[in-house]
C-alpha cells in the first residue's frame, strides 16, 4: 500500500488521537457535524474546525440507552454513548441537522445535557424548490450568526468564498479518486477509496487535499488491479465500518461505486463559486445532497442509475443499518426499479453498530459466487 494510503488508514483507525493532537497543538475549536447536509464551509469560515461525527467502532453501548432507546439507529445511539463517555475530548460543540428522528433527538438530548459549550440545529429542507433553497439560505444565515457569536469572529463574504474554494478543491480531488474506480481494471480498490474519503472527515481539508494530490500522482503510475472482479455498487445510509467494505472486497468483488452518506453523497458535486452569494450557493448545493431522509425515491433512483451506468455495475448491495427507517423505506421500490431497469441482482444486508461480520460474509460470498457464475 502507498504511504499516503497507509497514513489515511492510520487516521481513520484512531481519529481521536489525530484530532486531540491537533486541538492541543493548534488550539483550534472543533465543531462536530452530522450527515453530509451541514455546510462545513460556514464553520471553517468562522475560524473553527469542522469534524464529521462518527462513533468509534470499539465499545458496546452502555450509557447512551439512558436517553436514546434501543429501537433507534445504533449509529446515532453509539455517538451519544461515546459523548457521555467523554470519547470526543477535542470537541467544543456540534451542529446537528433535521433528518431522521434519531438524529433530531440526538440534538435535543445533546442540548438538554449540554456536554460542550456550543450546540445548534439546522433545518434542512426536504424539498428542492426555489422556495426551499431560499428558506435554507436564510437558515444558513442564522447558523452563521450563531457561529460568529461563538467564535468571536465575523464571517466575511471573502472568508466564506475561501472556505467554499477549500472544500470544493477537496471534493473535486475526491471525485477524481472516485473516477479512477470506473476503469475496468481500477488502480484503486473500494476499500482504499473508502479510506481516502473517510480521512477527509477527520483531517484539515487543505492538508487532506495535499495528500490527495500526492495520492493521485502515485496512482497515475500504479499498475491496475485485476480487472475480472465482480463490480458492485454499495448503497445505504451511514456505512462507516471499514470491516464491511473489506469483507465485501475480500470475498472477491470490487466496490467501484457507492451511494452512502460517508461516500459519494458527501462529494457528489461542487458549490457554485460565482453567482448568487455564498449562502444561497451553499443552500443550493446542500439541499441537493441525496440522503434518504430528504430525497424522494425517484430522485434517489436517478442518482443510483447514474452510478450504475457510469461504473458498469454488475450487482448492488443494500447495506442498511437496523432501525434506519428512511433507508428501509426506500429499499423495496429502489430494489424493484434496479432489477427492472438494469436487470441487476441485488442483496440486502442489515448492518448494525458492532455488526458480527461472519453471518454477513456468508451471504455476501454467496451473492458474489452467484454473480461470478453469471447468475442473477
Amino acid at each position, binding site marked *: 500500500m502507498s504511504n499516503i494510503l497507509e497514513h489515511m488508514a492510520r487516521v481513520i483507525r484512531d481519529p481521536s488521537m489525530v484530532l486531540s493532537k491537533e486541538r492541543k497543538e493548534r488550539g483550534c475549536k472543533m465543531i462536530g457535524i452530522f450527515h453530509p447536509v451541514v455546510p462545513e464551509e460556514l464553520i471553517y469560515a468562522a475560524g473553527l474546525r469542522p469534524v464529521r461525527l462518527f462513533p468509534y467502532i470499539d465499545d458496546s453501548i452502555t450509557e447512551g440507552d*439512558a*436517553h*436514546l*432507546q434501543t*429501537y*433507534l439507529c445504533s449509529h446515532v445511539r453509539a455517538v451519544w454513548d461515546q459523548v457521555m463517555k467523554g470519547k470526543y475530548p477535542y470537541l467544543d460543540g456540534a451542529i446537528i441537522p*433535521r*433528518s*431522521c*428522528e*434519531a438524529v*433530531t*433527538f440526538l*440534538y*435535543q*438530548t445533546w*442540548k*438538554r445535557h449540554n456536554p460542550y459549550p456550543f450546540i445548534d*440545529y439546522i*433545518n434542512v*429542507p*426536504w*424539498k428542492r*424548490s426555489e*422556495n*426551499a433553497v*431560499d*428558506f435554507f439560505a*436564510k*437558515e444558513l444565515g*442564522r447558523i452563521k450568526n450563531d457561529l460568529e457569536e461563538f467564535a468571536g469572529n465575523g464571517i466575511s463574504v471573502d472568508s466564506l468564498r475561501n472556505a467554499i474554494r477549500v472544500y470544493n478543491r477537496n471534493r473535486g480531488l475526491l471525485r477524481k479518486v472516485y473516477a479512477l474506480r470506473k476503469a475496468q481494471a481500477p488502480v484503486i480498490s473500494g476499500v482504499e477509496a473508502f479510506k481516502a474519503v473517510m480521512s477527509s472527515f477527520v483531517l484539515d481539508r487543505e492538508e487532506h487535499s495535499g495528500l490527495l494530490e500526492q495520492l493521485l500522482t502515485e496512482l497515475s503510475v500504479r499498475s491496475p488491479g485485476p480487472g475480472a472482479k465482480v463490480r458492485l455498487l454499495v448503497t445505504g445510509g451511514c456505512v462507516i465500518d471499514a470491516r464491511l467494505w473489506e469483507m465485501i472486497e475480500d470475498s472477491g468483488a470490487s466496490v467501484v461505486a457507492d451511494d452512502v452518506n460517508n461516500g459519494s453523497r458527501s462529494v457528489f458535486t461542487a458549490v457554485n463559486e460565482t453567482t448568487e452569494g455564498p449562502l444561497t450557493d451553499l443552500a443550493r448545493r446542500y439541499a441537493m445532497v441525496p440522503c*434518504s*431522509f*430528504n430525497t*424522494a*425515491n*425517484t430522485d434517489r433512483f436517478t442518482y443510483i442509475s447514474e452510478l450504475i451506468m457510469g461504473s458498469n455495475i454488475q450487482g448492488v448491495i443494500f447495506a442498511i443499518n*437496523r*432501525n434506519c*427507517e*428512511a433507508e*428501509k*423505506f*426506500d*429499499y*423495496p*421500490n429502489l*430494489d424493484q426499479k434496479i432489477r427492472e431497469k438494469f436487470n441487476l441482482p441485488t442483496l*440486502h444486508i442489515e448492518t448494525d453498530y458492532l455488526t458480527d461480520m461472519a453471518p454477513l460474509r456468508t451471504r455476501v460470498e454467496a451473492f458474489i459466487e452467484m454473480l461470478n457464475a453469471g447468475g442473477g
Partner: protein
Amino acid sequence: MTEKTRRERPAFNKIISATIERHYKDIQINRPLGYALMAPNPLVEIACAAGIQPAFPENYAAVSAVKHLSKKYCETAEAHQYAPDICSYCRNNLGYVYDSKENPPLGGLGRPDLLLLTSSACTHYFKWWDALHEIYKIPLIYINTPRVMEPQAMPDYYLAYAIREIEAAITQIEDIGGVKITPEQLSQAVTLSGEVVDYWQKLLELQKAAPCPVNLTDISNALFVLIALVGKQEGVDVIKAVYDETKQRVADGTGVFTKEEEKHRLMWINIPFWFNLGLFGYFEKRGCVFPLSDYTQYIWGTTKMDGARPLESLARKALGGELNSSLDDQIGKMIKDIKEYRIDGIIAHSNRSCRVLSVGIPDVVEVIRKELNLPSLVLDGDHTDERVYSDANIMNRIEAFLEMLG
C-alpha cells in the same frame, strides 16, 4: 380490592361513532379523494375549500388495529419488503394497499386521486407518502415546513416559508382539480376550523374538574373531529355537542367516577395501544382516570385559526403542535399541565413505531420525577402491531405500579 364501576359513558360517543361511519361512507362515494396525513395538516382545510374528500391512512391503521387486522396487514407489507422496524401505521396501510381488500373494515379507505402531505411530523411520513406516490402514480401535494425547536422565538422566515408553501399547494390543487378556491371559501374553511379548535381547547379545560368528566378514551374518540372535520360546519356541530355535554357533566358533578371513587388521576404519554383499548377499562376498575395525555393535548387544536388571516393561520397550524416542536417545549407544557390537572402518576408508552413521541420519554419521566416527585411507569410496545405486545408483562407491571400508588 374493591372494583370501581364507571358511570354511563358520555352520550357523545354515539355521535362520534356515527360521524366516523359517515366519514367512511363519504370516502366510498365522494371524489376526488385525497389521502391526507393526520398530523396537523393545513391541506385538510384547503381540501375542504376545494371540494376534495380527505381520507386518513393513520386513522384507518388504528381502526384496523382495533379490529385486530394489524397482524395481517403488517405481514403483507413485510412480504413486500417493508421491514418490521418501519412504523406500524405505515406497514398497516401499505399492507392494506397490497391486500385483496375483501370486506375491509368500514368499507375500506378508497383508492386515492391525490396525496396531501405536510412534513410537520416525522421522516416516516415523507417516505410513506412518497411510497404511496410511487405505487399509485398520482399527484403529491406536499407542504415542507421546518421543525420549530423554540416556538417562543420562531424566526420570521419560518412562517414566510410555510405561507409560500401553502400558496404553492393551493395553486397546485387548483391546477390539478381544475377548480378555483376563492378567498371566501378558504376564509370560511379556516373560520370553521377555528371554531372547532376553540371548542376543543375549552373541552380540554373541563378535564381539570374533579371528578374528571370524561376519560381519555372518550376524548380520543372526539379527536377525530380535530383531524377529519376541520373546515366543515359538521365539525363545529359535533364538537359543540361534545363540549356541551361535558360542560353539563361538570356542572352536575358527573364524572367517570364520583369524586369519592376517583382514586387516581393519571397522565398517559403517547398513543394508546389501539388493539387493547380495554386496558383503560382495567384502569377504571382500579379507580384510575386519565384527564391528561400529550396525545390529545399538544398535537391537534393547538393553533388559533383566524378566518381573516387564512394563509397565516394555516401556516401556523403546519408549524405548530408537539410533533413539530422540541422536547424542552413539551416538558415545559407537561410540568404545567400535570399540576393544573392534578395528576398523581404517569404512564408512558415507549412506542417503537412512533419515535417522535417516544424518544424523549426517558428525559420526560426523569424531569417529572425530580421536579414533581411523581411516580411513573414506562411500558414498551407499539401503537398497532400486536405482535410485539406482551400482555402478561404489561399487566404485571401495571399491577405493580398501581399497588405502589396505593
